[in-house]
């Protein structure tokens, strides 16, 4: 009877030898010594017949497993050595890397998301309503009486069947107020439409963000607080706001809000037509008629609303000079943001 081979010891010995192999010649030597037809493990397998039957199976399985393990270790070592050699000779670090494709969000989405995030931090949640609206929600409930000249402020697309395309996202105010009781603090971003000729400054469709807040004791001072807070986050701490009286049927008092020119800081330049200010949004205290339309008591509830055009904000922020670029979707344009 032959000696029982110590496979574990042999395997450890082989592994150590492989560790030391630094070139092809050493690897070839390893291969023939351990894995070849005349290698150590082949010899053991061939010698199985000389073992006691009860040992044959055990040693056989062990030897086969050891052989597989060493083969894998050999392949890995060989690969590593080859790559080391390739790195030393062929690596061209100037060739492009393998990138994972990456697209981009539309710049209007990016701006909207930023606005939503800022107002979310001030307690505003997002709501929306239909784009094809009724006259009631778009105008009448917002205190635009029929035949009132204020309706001329918003050129409207009409749709068959007594509908219209909403001219602002302000109808969301009415829709939310109808469903909820104060306090409500809502931000309503969405598409709006105006029947205006398409040119560099105007388009028949735009995105508006309407924000509103109704509760007991909301004042114009709160409106200023929220808008100043927004401007500081969106445009930077140095941005100053100016509140000018204006007119919107659904707010009273109403205001037009200007921001100190982003280019010249207020000194006057071409962008701001040498006025130092850029108009960014309209706002005001929600008109009591709007509250009456949704059965809120204007003696108990007050509130403010504001609306801004996302295209306008994006154009200011990124100095984009043609509104049509947003909707042409030239990928070279989109990739810039």
């Amino acid at each position, binding site marked *: 009877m032959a000696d029982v081979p110590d496979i574990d010891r042999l395997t450890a010995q082989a592994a150590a030898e492989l560790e030391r192999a630094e070139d092809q010649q050493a690897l070839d030597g390893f291969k023939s010594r351990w894995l070849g037809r005349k290698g150590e493990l082949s010899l053991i397998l061939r010698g199985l017949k000389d073992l006691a039957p009860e040992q044959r199976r055990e040693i056989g399985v062990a030897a086969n497993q050891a052989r597989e393990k060493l083969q894998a270790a050999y392949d890995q070592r060989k690969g590593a050595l080859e790559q080391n050699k390739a790195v030393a000779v062929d690596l061209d670090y100037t060739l492009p890397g393998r990138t994972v494709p990456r697209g981009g969000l539309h710049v209007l989405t990016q701006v909207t998301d930023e606005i939503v995030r800022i107002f979310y931090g001030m307690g505003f949640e997002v709501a929306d309503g239909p784009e094809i609206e009724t006259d009631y929600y778009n105008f009448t409930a917002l205190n635009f009486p029929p035949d009132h000249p*204020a309706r001329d402020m918003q050129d409207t697309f009409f749709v*068959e069947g007594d509908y219209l395309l909403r001219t602002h996202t302000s109808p969301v105010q009415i829709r939310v107020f109808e469903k909820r009781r104060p306090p409500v603090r809502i931000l309503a971003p969405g598409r709006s439409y105006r029947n205006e000729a398409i040119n560099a400054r105007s388009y028949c469709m735009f995105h508006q963000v309407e924000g509103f807040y109704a509760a007991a004791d909301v*004042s114009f001072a709160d409106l200023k607080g929220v808008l100043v807070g927004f401007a500081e986050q969106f445009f930077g701490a140095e941005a100053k706001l100016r509140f000018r*009286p204006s007119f919107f049927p659904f707010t009273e008092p109403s205001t037009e809000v200007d921001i100190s020119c982003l280019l010249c800081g207020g000194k006057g330049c071409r962008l701001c037509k040498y006025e130092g200010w850029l108009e960014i949004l309209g706002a005001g205290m929600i008109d009591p008629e709007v509250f009456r339309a949704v059965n809120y008591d204007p003696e108990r509830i007050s509130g403010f609303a504001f609306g801004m055009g996302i295209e306008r904000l994006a154009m200011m922020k990124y100095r984009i000079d043609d509104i049509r670029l947003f909707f042409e979707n030239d990928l070279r344009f989109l990739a810039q943001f």
Partner: protein
Amino acid sequence: MQVSYKWLQEYIAFDWSPDELARRLTMIGTAVERITPLYEKFSGVRIARIEKVDRHSGQDRLSLCTINDGTGVRVVVCGAPNVHPGLYAPYAMPGAVLPGGMEVKTATIAGVSSPGFLCSEAELGLSEESDRIMELDPEAAETGMDLWEFLDLDDWIMQFELTPNRPDCMSALGLAREIGALIGTKVRRPELELHEGGGAAAERVTVQIDDPDGCPRYAARIVDNIEIKPSPFWLKRRLHAAGMRSLNNIVDIANYIMIETGQPLHAFDFATFSRPNIVVRAATAGEEFTTLDNERRAMPADAVMITDGAAALAVGGIMGGLASEVSAVTRAVLLESAYFNPSRIRRTRKQLGLASEAALRFEKGVDPNGVGFALDRAAALMAELAGGQVLQGAVDVYPAPVAPLRLEVRPVRVNKIIGVDLASPRMIDILSALEFGVTGGKTIAVAVPTFRPDITREIDLIEEIARIADYGAIPVRRKAAGRIPTAVNPLNQFETRIKEILVGEGLFEVVTNSLVDPRRLTPGEAGLAVKLKNPLSEELSVMRASLCGSLLQVVAHNLNRQVPTIAIFEIGRVFQQVDGVIRERHAAAVMLAGNAFVTRWETGVRAVDFYDLKGILVTMCRALRLELELCAAPYEMFADRASFELRVGETPLGSLGLIAPELARRYDVKIPVWAAFLDFDKLERAGRATAVYRPLPRFPKAERDCAVIVSRSVKGGDLVETVKRAAPELIEQVDIFDVYTGKPIAADKKSVAISVSYRAEDRTLTDAQVNDAHSKAVELLKNCFNAELRE
């Protein structure tokens, strides 16, 4: 609305520069849009007196004027008909620079040397009058005076951008009142010096209102014996400041008083009346009328007609008629000052498509109690400038006089809404300066002047106080009153998530117009499309029923600009009309065209294909823990054999396929476009499932491969499913890792290499168990697909 800076100074004293005035007015809501010089600067023009006029010996139409310009006497050549001795006229001497930059030199005209010339108003840029030499007031003019100084031409046009609620500011007096509120003083109204005579007007004409809804007040005066002639320079200057053309003294006066007071006036040639009775009535059915602009128009039912009891004379508040127009031969005018119902005017104006200055004021609401003052003031001026005789009295029909509205304003409420702490005397001062009648107290009682139709409620008074008190003085309160728990909008959040996944897959988000061209739609879409009643153009006349056309347009735009890879998506609304019911749904679409968006230097460029698109959607669904399935289904936008339905379990989510070439060509796209369309609302509902933890496998897996040769028509997915059936409880995963066609495989066959992972949950599988399952799987493939095992 525009007036000049110096004009405003006639009614109110202020010493702000034009820029400062504009800034201050803008900050109380009376926005100044633009300031421009009233006249273009000229220099070197002085006043000369014509001493003697001689005819030119050769040229009849030329005269040789001997003039005295204060420094001496000289002779200039002049072609105007109105030169005569004693006339004071502007003289441009050599070296003078006229508007447009023309420098005056000594010139020889018809053989006579002329050192400069006498000027017309047109040459000085003062009016369009170019035939006559400008005539200066002999009472005021002195030879040698600089004309620019003499006429005080340093003035500026202030152009206002008014909000539609402020008709009172469509007048110089109204704007002056705003300045008065800033300063805290009241305006000076122009003095009225009306001399009447020649009998009572009421004996010459009657006024009858048959349509008191359309015309609550109608007042008329008769001015007789007038002489139609050009207006004096001061009046032309006013019209120029207002942006209006000078026509003749009568029409100019009517326009001037409208701009001054805000009350539109109309002058009729009284001789054209067939009867001496003004009858105001509603338009009759089918009535037609020829307006001043010589257009015969059908009158809408809302129109208020001014008639002489027989024939119509004017469309009340909108435009006069051609037949009764003041002309060069007019000797007597009937001057109308009236108040018309704003809604009626607005509807008529819109239906007629006419926007006159008068209509724009009436539709916003003029002062019904200002009718008389404007009428008297215009009549007085007609007497002064046209030599007319104003008959005694106005014929004024005003059956239901409008009284000032009485309101109360609570100082506490003012401070609560604005968020300030104003004292009640300050509020009273502000309202008084705006000419409100005010009585102080715990609540302030206010009588609203009738020129402010916009003020009907306490809140309107609060705004008046707030705007004059200065919005800038309102504090910025950072502490939002009361905390509200803020919920996240789930659909909004889901949309953001999907967008981020798709961006991570290399796609660019696009935002396209919801208005599309109906001529490019598929028949199915065209049947659903919502049409606009008043589109901008045919190309943008329907709402999109799907995102297909919008995205194809983006593909075309980018192809035309040589963008090599177009990988885009949009999430937006689509609009569908079914049986008259309009539905808005959220849709998502992905489109791929051009080169594959990952190009690598080792593999080279290839075109995008089906598998790129399918991979994107599968990845997106995996992120939502959904297993996406495809099955062949026909869709009209896709090519026949490349049209699939997308589904998750039993829920259809949308479609995927190759855009039908004839559809793509409608957008000028000639390369293959792969597209997927998803019902976003359904996707959101399907994607709500949350993950449930499964214990990690405790026992090792075993892998086996096989390669089978099958017919080319066999679907890989069917092979995978069949393998799974061989041992459902042991097979963990089946993947196809190679598909090969070509030699040595027969032409109608392909080789598919499949790897299978076997694992049991509760034990380590033995070789024998794995082999057994694997041969069962291979056996099944052989039976089901007539597969041969490839060695």
